[in-house]
């Protein structure tokens, strides 16, 4: 399948929510993203699958500006993220520009990364108060609504160390949502969880997909989940998209040899 065809057509006037244009990223000699082109439409749900080292997590990390890219440009709603326009040319973005652009993106991490020195509700209120300037009352109300949505309002006063992994990850999702991002990134959010609590976290993401207008990029090893929730699945191999398409096609009837090998390996393991 041709790398450049996108199953979801974009109107010319509508810039994609996210656009990777010829993006490359290296660690020394290792190329983790290799001239990657990827468009993601607003409200689209895209899952990224692939073997470890294929660059799938790096896609999220560079989009969240946790790591710089070496080449190419990333756009968010038509605006360059990693670069900014100055005098008609694109230059590396300043910290102020990065902070402005970042406010549209939220990310949930594999290891939750809750703040251990704050309670659950304080975890959720921290950024709305400190970064958005909300009053504590507004932030508390917003956070409680989200904690209720993820089904963990009764733990609001607890510290993260008292929560199970699944509960911690649901708090992390609520915390990211409290910033009202337009694009949510999920980085292997169930990989560190015990099998019996994976479902509760996936249910929260399902609910988000169903009820909210969010663009979601999900890096996952849960093939069943990817198939059910995604508008599109991208299979990454060696820093590029080796194959992409609607989930039933890509997971059910992959065309690329690499995709077939990967899927049969993961599905066998399940």
């Amino acid at each position, binding site marked *: 399948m041709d790398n450049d065809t996108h199953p979801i057509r974009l109107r010319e006037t509508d810039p994609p929510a996210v656009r990777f244009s010829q993006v490359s990223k290296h660690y020394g000699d290792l190329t983790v993203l290799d001239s990657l082109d990827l468009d993601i439409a607003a409200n689209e749900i895209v899952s990224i699958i692939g073997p470890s080292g294929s660059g799938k997590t790096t896609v999220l990390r560079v989009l*969240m500006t946790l790591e710089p890219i070496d080449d190419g440009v990333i756009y968010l709603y038509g605006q360059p993220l990693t670069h900014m326009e100055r005098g008609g040319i694109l230059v590396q973005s300043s910290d102020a520009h990065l*902070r402005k652009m970042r406010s549209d993106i939220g990310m949930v*991490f594999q*290891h939750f990364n809750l703040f251990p020195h704050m309670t659950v509700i304080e975890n959720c209120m921290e950024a709305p108060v400190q970064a958005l300037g909300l009053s504590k009352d507004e932030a508390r109300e917003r956070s409680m609504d989200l904690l209720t949505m993820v089904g963990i309002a009764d733990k609001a006063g607890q510290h993260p160390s008292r929560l199970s992994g699944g509960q911690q990850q649901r708090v992390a999702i609520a915390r990211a949502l409290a910033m009202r991002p337009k694009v949510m990134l999920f980085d292997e959010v169930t990989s560190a969880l015990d099998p019996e609590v994976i479902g509760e976290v996936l249910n929260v993401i399902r609910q988000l997909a169903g009820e909210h207008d969010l663009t979601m990029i999900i890096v996952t090893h849960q093939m069943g989940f990817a198939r059910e929730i995604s508008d599109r699945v991208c299979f990454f191999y060696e820093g590029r998209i080796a194959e992409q398409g609607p989930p039933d096609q890509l997971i059910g009837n992959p065309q690329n040899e690499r995709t077939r090998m990967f899927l049969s390996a993961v599905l066998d393991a399940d």
Partner: protein
Amino acid sequence: MERYLDFLVEYGPRFVDGTIVTVQQTVLAALLAVAIALVMGLMKLSKLFLVRSVATTYIEIFRGTSLLIQLFWIFFVLPLFGITLEKFTAGFIAVGMNLGAYGAEVVRGAIISVPRGQYEVAIALNLSPYKRMTRIILPQALIAMLPPWGNLFIELLKGTALVALISVTDLMFEARQINGTTFLSAEAFGTALIIYYLLARLLISPSMLALERVMARKMGRTPGG
């Protein structure tokens, strides 16, 4: 025994005076050491080479040379360059600057011990670099640095004994004076020794332990658990 009680009755008030000065020197030097340690520890983590170099130079000089010589420099040599400090001030500044150099490494080590994920999520939540440090990283680093700080404060208390050598009338100064006039060396230095020990044992250690408990509770952990 009776002789020692007589000794205490006679010289007790002077030991009390000396102890008060020692406690003052310790508290002021500790405050200075913490401030210096924080600034130098953060500077050592700077991306800028120049900033890092300043901190490294400071730490190397104050950790690599003798506290006594630093004290003499601050009290006897600085006046030659037009900076004259009162002996009490020179005393706690020298001790504070010296221990601050050790503390800087403690601060640096504690900050880099905070998991990387905490920095990353602070970026993802769009906190400013200043708030990332003050609200997310430093509170967690504080917990890691409390036990080594307990050690440093005890070192600092004992280090203040050197200020007697520039005639600050601290506990050590009084003990030397009493020894000089009475020649009761065992009583004079024995009493000073016990007072230093009790200050460390009854003031510093319990305070640090209490602080550790408070921090553990902030982290949602029960003490000892």
